[in-house]
């Protein structure tokens, strides 16, 4: 008898462990090929960002005039591909200010990841608060907030960012703020939709009957439901934010030289595309890979967490 009880307890515990929500979700995520590819690329990029000083052979802002015998916009020189060992090795060449392009691209990973994460974090926090209050309070608060966000959404995001940065003044911080502002409506809408779908549920009414305050109900009972779609949207949003920030920098509105930011690097050398295409090619590829990683991860997460959002 004792043995049977122990065995059944063991089975129940095992089932419980193997079927916990997190485990199930993780298993679903790992079954998504795009999520796994996205995560792998991102993992690699995070490592590059962390260990940039170890990977980069030069300081990204170090001008090599007088240090080495290299000329402005020199082509890539890779020993393994037959480049003479008399020359210093620059695997992505040298930029217009005689700086090692590879080191700049490596350090650029830090900027891109920081830009993506910081703008989206800001937008998610503000968007969540706005969306939560709009959905929970309803009535005129909902109307006012949502109409304001509708207006923000009526502008193409890059265009509104350009206008905001022109007003605030160029620079990376203002560019980040502009991108964050224009992405608020998406997150607010996601959260509002989640809040509206669960706020009439019996368990929310029960929480209210037990004397839970509005803030407690909103943040502990309702908002956790908005987390999965919010994670999906935020992951996809990071890619867009990185693209928009790079575009602003390309136009001279975002990060300013000599910052090793990929958009800025592209913008600085864009007129040299016919003479030194490598200086345009590498930063662009870096942007593309990073954005692609977030997009793949976002797509995979969406399919795993919330297939209803699948487009």
């Amino acid at each position, binding site marked *: 008898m004792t043995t049977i009880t122990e065995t059944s307890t063991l089975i129940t515990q095992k089932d419980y462990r193997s079927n916990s929500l997190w485990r199930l979700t993780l298993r679903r995520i790992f079954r998504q090929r795009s999520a796994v590819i996205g995560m792998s690329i991102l993992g690699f990029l995070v490592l590059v960002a962390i260990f940039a000083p170890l990977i980069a052979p030069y300081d990204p802002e170090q001008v090599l005039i007088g240090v080495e015998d290299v000329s402005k916009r020199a082509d890539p020189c890779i020993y393994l591909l037959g480049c003479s060992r008399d020359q210093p090795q620059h695997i992505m060449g040298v930029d217009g200010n005689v700086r090692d392009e590879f080191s700049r691209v490596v350090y650029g990973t830090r900027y891109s990841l920081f830009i993506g994460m910081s703008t989206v974090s800001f937008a998610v926090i503000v968007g969540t608060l706005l969306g939560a209050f709009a959905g929970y309070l309803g009535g005129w608060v909902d109307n006012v907030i949502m109409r304001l966000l509708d207006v923000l959404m*009526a502008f193409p995001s890059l265009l509104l960012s*350009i206008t905001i940065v022109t007003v605030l003044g160029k620079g990376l911080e203002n560019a980040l703020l502009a991108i964050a502002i224009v992405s608020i409506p998406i997150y607010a809408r996601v959260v509002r939709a989640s809040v509206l779908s669960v706020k009439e549920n019996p368990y929310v009414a029960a929480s209210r009957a037990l004397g839970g305050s509005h803030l407690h109900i909103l943040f502990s009972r309702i908002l956790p439901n908005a987390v999965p779609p919010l994670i999906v949207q935020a992951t996809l949003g990071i890619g867009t934010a990185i693209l928009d920030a790079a575009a602003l920098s390309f136009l001279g509105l975002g990060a300013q030289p000599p910052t090793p930011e990929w958009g800025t690097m*592209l913008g600085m050398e864009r007129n040299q595309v016919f003479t030194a295409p490598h200086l345009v090619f590498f*930063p662009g590829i870096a942007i593309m890979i990073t954005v692609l990683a977030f997009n793949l991860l976002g797509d995979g997460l969406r399919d795993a967490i919330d297939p209803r959002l699948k*487009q």
Partner: protein
Amino acid sequence: MIQYIIRRVLSAIPVLFGILIVTFALARMIPGDPCKAILGEKATVEVCERFAREYGLDKPIYVQFGIYMNDVLHGDFGESIRFSRPVTIILVERLPTTIELGLAALLIAVLIGIPAGIISAVYRNSPVDVAVMVGANAGVSMPVYWLGLMLAYIFALLLKDTPLWLPPTGRLTAGIASTPFYEVFEWPVVEGGIKYHFFEFFANMYVINSIITQDWEVLRDTLKHLILPAFALSTIPLSIIARMTRSSMLEVLKLDYVRTARAKGVIERLVILKHALRNALLPIVTVIGLQVGTLFAGAVLTETIFGFAGVGRILYEAITARDFPIIQAFTVVIAIGYVVINLLVDISYIFIDPRIRLD
């Protein structure tokens, strides 16, 4: 049906009003004295006072907004700081180039995106599907300006002296000029008048103008110059349209009526193109409408790279010169255009999906 249209038009009015408030507020948030920003640091107090009176800057803010709204409704966006010319005239001169580029990009996106999405859905999980989806994923992740530069490098430099060579900048080769249709047909038009600007607007769209005037050399040259920027600009909309078409088709293809059509013996091509696509079209059309914003914003970058004298290019120049009236006007015009196009898309639902008409 009319009720639905009226409801949609009415719901767009607050958004249009909001757009004007936002752009007005942004203009007022520019740090520093607007007089000195526009007339220069050396502007004297008297000059600035006269400037404030002239532009109504000495009046309460709500009166200023009233003046601004009145001006915008009359098509008056003020004067460009950099060019010392009315912004409206600059817009009329430059918009056709951007519209032509945007339409060409949209055409490429639709003509490639929809068939790619359909093929992808029909041959789900096949190598073709995987290739289309990988391409679409890469397409949405690519910076437009980078692709533009790379295309210019490949087609203008690497493929030089081959029949595939394409020009990297400009709208026409030096020595070739597009003669406005009203000049070819010898219509009496006084330069500078409204009629002139109206005709000039259409004549500036070289593709349309050369078709009207049957000038095939200009048409060929225009198209040659248009391909690269239009293709670069089309990548993001193309990818999004392909993805949306695929998922929308997949949804529809598993419905019962599609199975019924197949069971009836309808040939597969008709099942897909007539039965399935027609019902899958609604989200595709919606997403096409939403891409208009992406196209106009992308035009700023593409025109800068390909030396197109469109609104995007002038916006870039305005950014560097902090020429706010131009930036403001462009933002207002594009945002309004964006709202109006999406309104038209909403109204087009009636024709695509009769159920909406019945509701």
